[in-house]
């Protein structure tokens, strides 16, 4: 195998021997016919098209519905590796919720001087409307999707915390469904932990956070989508369907008698828990962006009065803000009293003059990100950039340094994909999905593995040509 030694390959060690979690899979693979497997890849694509697991790409009219490529080689994680990740994730998510409560109440962490006050006060992700608000059940982030990358046997780093409206969980579920249909024999050989209970757990977590106004025996849950042209519409419909919840758009909603209600065939009906898949800014044109067509005028007032639960709570964006990211180890320590189990990627804050100088001097080695960007847009991958791109980025950086952070280019681990000539290593990341209820944090074993399909590429985002893999966590 052509594995460049500087990257950690999760399937094979440097000598080409399969690592423990992959040994059974590797035996199986060795006995399979490559041609047959390639046919399976095409089968998978047809399967995805038929189900309609597509996403819309902004600004690309031609290909208005695209498929995220699916790779049939699973990413396998051992029980031991997962146990440690699980601990680290739970710790981090607890800290995030404690931080959000604090930052919208007494702000002890600012008083203690652990993070600079201006980072909060002047941050657009901080919502003054949330100050003093107690979200039902005390939960801010009902759903979190923490992005992890790996660089070595035991080296996992958190890349982003995604505490707003993380997406991709439908791919986790459909990828598994596809693998079960295509390779049932593998699941009898390996003890893969199931992921299929996610929608039920999601419903449970949301129901457990019913608002004070809820009266009845079963909270009414609805999913709020921007509509069928949104890139993640499939996922919104999928989750509503799997949870048995209504899928609503803003024009289905209206405030009646201090409750947020949906227009049904029999009149208006109150919603208890709204799993919203629209950003804070669009949630309420009366309280936030007045031009929003996607939200419900006055929903924030109902929320503050205990008439509805909004998941995730408005204002959680302050916890996954890239400007705050570098303070996460302090945040974890401050609220849990423990050292962070998961490592942070070393980060230069370009707002600090010394850091900016370092970043400008080493631009070609670094990854530079916009503080408020997402989806891989507006990002510079130094080692992959041309001289012109570097020069252009330098200009942007100098013009508004506080808009950027920089990180070393991580040597992301690789997992093989099924390429034309057989297995070929490609870089991956991992997004496990976490559900938070007042009593319990539930982490689905596995998550979404995104893979950069282009040889050597480090950008795994689906909007930038990335694909996905099924992620297997092995049982004990």
């Amino acid at each position, binding site marked *: 195998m052509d594995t460049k030694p500087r990257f950690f390959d999760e399937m094979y060690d440097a000598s080409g021997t399969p690592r423990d979690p992959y040994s059974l899979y590797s035996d199986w693979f060795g006995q399979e016919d490559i041609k047959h497997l390639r046919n399976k890849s095409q089968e998978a694509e047809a399967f995805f*098209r*038929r*189900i*309609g697991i597509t996403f819309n790409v902004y600004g690309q009219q031609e290909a208005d519905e695209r498929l995220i490529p699916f790779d049939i080689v699973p990413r396998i994680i051992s029980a031991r590796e997962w146990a440690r990740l699980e601990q680290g994730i739970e710790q981090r998510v607890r800290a995030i919720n404690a931080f959000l409560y604090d930052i919208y109440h007494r702000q002890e962490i600012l008083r203690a001087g652990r993070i600079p006050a201006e980072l909060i006060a002047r941050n657009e992700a901080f919502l003054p409307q949330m100050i003093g608000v107690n979200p039902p059940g005390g939960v801010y982030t009902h759903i979190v999707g923490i992005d992890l990358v790996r660089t070595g046997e035991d080296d996992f780093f958190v890349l982003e915390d995604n505490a707003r409206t993380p997406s991709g969980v439908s791919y986790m579920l459909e990828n598994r469904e596809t693998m079960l249909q295509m390779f049932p024999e593998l699941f009898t050989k390996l003890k893969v932990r199931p992921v299929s209970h996610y929608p039920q757990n999601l419903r449970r977590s949301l129901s457990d956070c019913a608002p004070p106004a809820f009266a009845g025996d079963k909270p009414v849950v609805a999913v709020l989508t921007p509509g*069928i042209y949104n890139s993640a*519409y499939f996922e919104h*419909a999928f989750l*509503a*369907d799997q949870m048995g*919840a*209504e*899928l*609503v*758009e803003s*024009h*289905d909603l*209206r405030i009646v008698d201090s409750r947020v209600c*949906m*227009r*049904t*065939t*029999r*009149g208006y009906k109150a919603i208890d828990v709204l799993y919203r898949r629209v950003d804070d800014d669009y949630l309420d044109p009366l309280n936030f962006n007045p031009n929003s067509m996607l939200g419900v005028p006055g929903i924030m007032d109902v929320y503050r009065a205990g008439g509805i639960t909004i998941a995730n709570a408005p204002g959680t964006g302050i916890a996954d803000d890239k400007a705050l990211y570098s303070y996460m180890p302090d945040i974890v320590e401050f609220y849990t009293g423990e050292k962070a189990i998961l490592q942070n990627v070393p980060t230069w804050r370009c707002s600090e003059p010394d850091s900016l100088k370092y970043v400008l001097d080493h631009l070609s080695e670094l990854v530079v990100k916009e503080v408020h960007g997402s989806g891989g847009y507006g990002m510079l991958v130094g080692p992959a950039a041309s001289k012109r791109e570097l020069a252009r980025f330098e200009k942007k950086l100098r013009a508004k340094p506080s808009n950027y952070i920089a990180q070393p280019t991580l040597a992301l681990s690789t997992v093989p994909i099924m390429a034309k000539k057989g297995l070929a290593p490609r870089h991956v990341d991992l997004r496990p999905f976490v559900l938070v209820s007042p009593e319990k944090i539930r982490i689905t074993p596995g998550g979404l593995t995104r893979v950069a399909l282009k040889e050597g590429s480090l950008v795994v985002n689906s909007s930038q040509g990335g694909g996905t893999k099924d992620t297997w966590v092995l049982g004990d």
Partner: protein
Amino acid sequence: MLGKTAGGLFWMFRYLERCENTARLLDAGWRISLTRSGDTSGEWESVINTAGIRFLYDQKFTDFDAGHVINFLLRDTDNPSSVLSAISLARSNARLVRTALSSEVWEAVNEYWMAIKAALARPVTEKTLAPVLAEIRNRTAIVRGTLHGTMLRNDIYNFCRLGTFVERADNTARILDVKYYVLLPSASFVGSSMDNTQWENILRSVSAERAFSWLHGGDVTASSIADFLILDRRMPRSLAFCHAKILENLEHLEKDYGQRQPSQDMAERCTARFRNRRVAEVFEEGLHEFLETAIHDTAILASQIEKDFKFYG
């Protein structure tokens, strides 16, 4: 159920029905062009009239060339009733109401759309028409089958059925109205071979030629055809059948919701027009007037259903 969802289901099934009706019209036109020698453009013109898109067609074409008509009805996106437009609209409504559909129904519609998009990627000729029409027929049958076999018989199902029968009632009435003159007893060419083909064409447009012969044997008369397509409740595309089904579904909704809506009163009045009637009375009233009223009433009823069940905000 959300009002929007009810509206999505209603329109999804209206569009699916429309695809099928358009395919059937084309099939009838095509058969005539096969069995006739000489100029068939009059037949194709009547197909365009029956589809109710004459105005749009005239903006693009001045002749009734078979190729123009076929492609305008099948794949022209300027024609909102073309099979391609209608299946795209049916599918986007299905996406909108996906949470209300069984996965079988959704996949059947999605695959229908994919298959038709592929089949209509290039212009269709008289030679390649047959397999395309067969594909449309088969795909429709699969959607209908999954609907019957996998969906709960609840309000969701009722809205699907309402869409189907509103569209079908409208379609049958239009087909008859465009050709009403060949059914009039006063028509001078009664008994000529010309009007035999016309009659056959009407029956074919609603896929009823076989059913008709079973029931009426050799007795092919204008009034027996009119009776069959207007008043016969055994015939699943007759006006009487469609309106009885509309009423039946509204009655289910009344029971389910515990509330009677104005649309149900309207539907009762519509159904009454077909019940215990003899076809002679229809001719007395005036066939054309009778059909025009039916088309008008169906449209009013559809918009009352939209209002009663809050399809739009």
